[in-house]
């Protein structure tokens, strides 16, 4: 099994630096909050010894002058998703390990790209060079990762054949284990992979359980864990940009309604149902916001989806001004029928649809068709009170 590890060191920090160039040259700690626990997600390269998962208090004690930034997880995931999609153009077997690290299965691909050099060239081209990617190639995920760790930005390093000797001097921090297990290994005097390789497998399993066996095998250069390709879920997504950041719920719901109408009119979604929706937005001076809404039952029309999303937003409104809104419909089901109501105002809708189709034929493209809607009727600024929303009968 030949595996490439694509490693983007300090990936969250790289993205924050792209967004805020003033961070260059400063010590930065990116903080993640989960259930009231604040831990370090990432740091700038200048900071050492603070691995992801380290409690923030420890980080603050060791680097009191460091700039603290709240993690913008939706942004990091979105950008990493773009990179994974590009890697999937190279190989169908791509596994996301963690944010900033992916494994790519390379078996049988060199013939497609004109040899190993061609394959490496295509692999490197899939990742933006400004993110300083490092590439490691090895006979398993862990050897590939350790090779990537030694690589310089933009460099490809192949793990040597004598893996046990190659890995002996590496610190235990490179193992794919939790911060707590890493700290325990060091307390037991096992600071390098060579120290672990010299132990018998029995005591390692006794102390660390199944993880101990995995750690021991990796220290020997053995990693039989398969690459599990990502499951790509069919999704439909659309976005609206706001000319001014908005806070009020009514315009957000109006935008949601507009996006839903657009999505449900797509040919790929016609006659199909969605089980969940994901709302994402860039916020002014805050990390991105997202809210997942699972529908009680699969919905196949925009009004039903809007009712569920409206209820969710009323319970958990966005914490600040939104600059845009992206809505993704997920959990797309196969085509299903649903008993409709015969007594509905179908005639007007049908007539409108007929007129639009006729106009489309005459003009050669779909004419813009908008509906006049109230946005902020209480506003003292007249142009904020009403808007026109694209209408799909």
């Amino acid at each position, binding site marked *: 099994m030949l595996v490439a590890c694509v490693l983007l060191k300090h990936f969250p920090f790289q993205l924050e630096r792209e967004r805020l160039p003033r961070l260059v040259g400063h010590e930065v700690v990116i903080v993640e909050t989960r259930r009231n626990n604040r831990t370090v997600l990432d740091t700038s390269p200048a900071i050492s010894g603070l691995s992801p998962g380290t409690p923030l208090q420890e980080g603050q004690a060791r680097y009191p002058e460091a700039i603290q930034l709240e993690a913008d997880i939706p942004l990091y995931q979105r950008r990493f998703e773009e990179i994974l999609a590009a890697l999937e153009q190279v190989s169908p077997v791509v596994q996301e390990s963690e944010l900033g690290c992916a494994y790519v299965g390379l078996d049988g691909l060199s013939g497609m790209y004109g040899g190993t050099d061609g394959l490496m060239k295509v692999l490197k081209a899939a990742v933006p060079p400004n993110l300083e990617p490092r590439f490691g190639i090895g006979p398993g995920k862990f050897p590939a990762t350790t090779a990537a760790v030694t690589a310089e930005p933009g460099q490809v390093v192949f793990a040597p054949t004598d893996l046990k000797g190659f890995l002996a001097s590496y610190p235990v921090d490179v193992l794919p284990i939790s911060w707590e297990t890493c700290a325990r290994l060091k307390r037991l005097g096992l600071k390098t992979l060579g120290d672990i390789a010299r132990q018998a497998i029995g005591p390692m399993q006794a102390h660390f359980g199944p993880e101990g066996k995995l750690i021991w095998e990796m220290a020997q250069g053995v990693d039989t864990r398969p690459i599990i390709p990502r499951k790509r879920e069919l999704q439909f997504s*659309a976005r*609206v*940009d*706001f*000319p*001014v*950041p908005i806070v009020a719920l009514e*315009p957000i719901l*109006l*935008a949601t309604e*507009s996006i839903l109408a*657009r999505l449900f009119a797509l040919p790929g979604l016609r006659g199909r149902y969605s089980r969940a929706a994901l709302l994402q937005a860039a916020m*002014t001076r805050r990390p991105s916001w997202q809210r997942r809404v699972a529908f009680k039952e699969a919905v196949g029309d925009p009004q039903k989806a809007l009712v569920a999303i409206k209820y969710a937003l009323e319970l958990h409104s966005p914490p600040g*001004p939104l*600059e*845009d809104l992206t809505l993704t419909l997920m959990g797309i089901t196969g085509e299903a029928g649903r008993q409709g109501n015969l007594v509905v105002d179908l005639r007007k809708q049908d007539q409108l649809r007929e007129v639009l189709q006729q106009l489309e034929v005459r003009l050669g493209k779909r004419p*813009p068709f*908008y509906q*006049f809607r109230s*946005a902020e009727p209480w*506003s*003292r*600024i*007249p*142009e904020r*009170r*009403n*808007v*026109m*929303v*694209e209408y799909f009968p």
Partner: protein
Amino acid sequence: MVKDTGASQRDGGILPVNEPETIAVDADDKGKPLAVKMRTHRKVEAILSCWRIDEEWWREKPVSRLYFTALLDDGVLLTLFRDLITGEWYRQSYE
């Protein structure tokens, strides 16, 4: 201060309604409109009402306007305002 996203409107988005239109206005020293230039030059016969709005002061581009309902010499009622930040004149329906 909340920044203008600067995003331009795209097809399929939400379109604004009743946006202000620029208009040329002759005003006196106190800022009261005396005449407006639309297709022709029209004198302002009377100012029927005047009010001020100051909104969104927390944004980078706050809104501060002095509105007038003006009766023109041909009997037309026109609502116009002076942007108190830029000094420009606009016409806009306030209904």
